[in-house]
């Protein structure tokens, strides 16, 4: 492992891509260790004083680990063994740079649209990768620093060591120089997240679908002018509503991203020219194909580096397929005083907000301040592809599985954002789907939206969802005009009716 690249995207030979600027992380181990030091200031913590160095030790300095440690009431010791600055995957190579680059691509589209709105813009505009990369990295570094300051403000002591478990109460921290520090704690929390998976042998690589990461990356790379091809072994956006997933990929295909569907890579060879030649098989036809690219990125999933943590020695139960730690609803593992949460937890959403919330609640529980568990239901999410897709609740497939086709009513609509009209943009994939329970007030089971600013649109609806909103609540809500979001409260055509669901006019 310890890979350099994050996404399986093949770029055209004519493109110049210096992806290394952002994704070349050659380090392997990135662990942060936080420790709560018992009873120095306020509430005496539940548990032992004096038997262990610390009441609580958190390994991991990303979204989850930081939130958990900052929530500590007492002096907290933080230890990291990473080349990244503080903030984990999200800040350094995930959500933050992703969204910024997505924005860069959107701005490119906006500049082209601007001509139709009267702006005098030259016919050809180009994008300068180094400028964007520097700007993104500057922001990431400012966040790294900000987290460092926050730890300081919350009285978290910070050390730079790579942590691994020696036994259920002991962690060994290794400095960059190789110096060892041994720390003991009553409770240990693992929040080390995941790292990109690198296909170990390309022929017959492990079965993985394309995740949102790959599509998002392909999306903004194409958006800034690089020719991009996405190779998909089976389906896109596994786990998401498949109708919505196909709208997302349809949009990308219509806008120039190439897809090699149902294909698997066989080998990647480096040519004398320096370009990479990829050989793959179309599993539907059995035919083999070859093409050359400047860069090859793998986005075949992420997995935790549990081996380096020493979990196998301790008997911490892992899921054999994913390598993630099996956790209970209170983030407990198979070993009594060891907890795990965030990306490393099996079955947990790989999202920053859930990791942060879970971390805070865990810290409170371990300090004996509350018994509240993390609620992983009703978590809204957004895929930041060129056409953004956001959702909260169940997919149509899942709702059908749970309630039966006759147990649900699906309202939907194809709409056109007003901004697209003057810009003469194609809105064929702008779509809303509200999956409700059949009968009664029609409790909303799932809400799906593709369109501009999908994340912003869905956040408010997620709150309604959390409150148990029904279809009747939805249609009682007055829309804000003119917006795309108002179309959500206006859905009235059911899938069952078979009628044309295209919105016309303002009614």
């Amino acid at each position, binding site marked *: 492992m310890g890979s350099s690249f994050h996404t399986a995207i093949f770029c055209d030979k004519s493109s110049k891509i210096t992806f290394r600027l952002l994704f070349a992380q050659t380090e392997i181990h990135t662990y942060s260790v936080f420790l709560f030091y018992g009873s120095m200031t306020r509430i005496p913590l539940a548990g032992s004083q004096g038997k262990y160095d610390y009441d609580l030790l958190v390994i991991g300095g990303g979204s989850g680990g930081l939130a958990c440690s900052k929530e500590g009431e007492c002096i907290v010791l933080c230890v990291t063994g990473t080349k990244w600055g503080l903030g984990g995957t999200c800040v350094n190579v995930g959500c933050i740079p992703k969204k910024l680059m997505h924005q860069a691509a959107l701005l490119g589209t906006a500049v082209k649209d601007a001509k139709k709105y009267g702006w005098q813009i030259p016919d050809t505009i180009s994008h300068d990768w180094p400028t964007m990369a520097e700007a993104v990295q500057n922001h990431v570094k400012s966040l790294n620093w*900000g987290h460092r300051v926050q730890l300081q403000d919350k009285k978290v002591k910070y050390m730079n060591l790579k942590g691994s478990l020696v036994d259920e109460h002991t962690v060994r921290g290794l400095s960059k120089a190789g110096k060892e520090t041994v720390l003991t704690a009553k409770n240990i929390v693992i929040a080390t997240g995941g790292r990109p998976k690198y296909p170990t042998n390309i022929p017959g690589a492990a079965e993985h679908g394309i995740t949102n990461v790959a599509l998002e990356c392909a999306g903004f790379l194409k958006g800034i002018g690089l020719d991009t091809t996405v190779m998909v072994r089976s389906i896109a956006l596994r786990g998401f509503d498949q109708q919505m997933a196909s709208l997302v990929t349809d949009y990308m295909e219509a806008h120039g991203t190439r897809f090699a569907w149902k294909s698997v890579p066989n080998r990647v060879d480096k040519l004398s020219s320096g370009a990479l030649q990829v050989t793959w098989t179309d599993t539907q036809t059995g035919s083999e194909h070859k093409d050359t690219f400047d860069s090859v990125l793998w986005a075949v999933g992420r997995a935790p580096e549990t081996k380096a943590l020493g979990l196998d020695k301790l008997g911490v139960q892992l899921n054999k397929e994913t390598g993630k730690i099996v956790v209970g609803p209170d983030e407990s593992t198979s070993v009594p005083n060891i907890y795990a949460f965030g990306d490393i937890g099996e079955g947990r959403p790989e999202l920053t907000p859930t990791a942060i919330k879970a971390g805070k609640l865990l810290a409170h529980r371990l300090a004996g301040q509350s018994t509240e568990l993390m609620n992983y239901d009703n978590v809204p999410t957004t895929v930041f592809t060129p056409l953004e897709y956001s959702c909260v609740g169940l997919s149509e497939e899942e709702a059908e599985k749970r309630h039966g086709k006759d147990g649900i009513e699906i309202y939907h609509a194809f709409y056109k954002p007003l901004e697209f009209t003057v810009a003469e943009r194609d809105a064929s994939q702008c779509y809303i789907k509200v999956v409700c329970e059949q009968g009664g007030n029609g409790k909303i089971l799932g809400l799906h939206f593709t369109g501009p600013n999908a994340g912003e649109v869905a956040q408010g609806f997620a709150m309604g969802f959390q409150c148990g909103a029904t279809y009747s609540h939805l249609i009682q809500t007055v829309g804000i005009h003119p917006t795309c979001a108002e179309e959500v409260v206006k859905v009235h055509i059911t899938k069952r009716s078979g009628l044309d669901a295209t919105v016309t006019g303002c009614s």
Partner: protein
Amino acid sequence: SLSAEKPHVPFFFCGTKTEALHWSARPRSRPAPTEEARSTASVASSCYSTSLQSTTTRVSFLSPSRSLPRALPHTSRREVSFNVQDSEDFTERVINSELPVLVDFHAQWCGPCKILGPRLEKAVAKQKGRVAMAKVDIDDHTDLAIEYGVSAVPTVIAMRGGDVVDHFVGIKDDDELDSFVSKVIGQ
């Protein structure tokens, strides 16, 4: 966009740089940060990540401990403006400096820092050797920056005889800098 937080007043920690941080209860009769210092640290003039909540404003001025006097006589360094190399360098050239020293805490990723830097150099140069300027990159010298309670950048700390005598956060214009520097020298 930059966070709309209140001007941050750095909180200074005591203790030698090599030890674990601990709190010192050594109050000094030093001026509290002036209203001027607070008001100039406006939103647009300093860098701070938007994902952070504002920190509380604390006002104590605890000065850093002095290190032992140098055993060897030092060759007098004539550089008026220099980059701090490490904590020993900081001790020697800032804490133990005979001149008052302005410490410019800055970062590569900070836009306003790139504006303030040259202005500060100009203000220091005007004083023709009566004040020195030490530049500290907070990513290279994180521990030092944290020890001096740097939060937002740019943060400039004025030191005289090893004690912090004044500071400001954010950008100042040339006139404001000139008066700040004059005050530090004691004119």
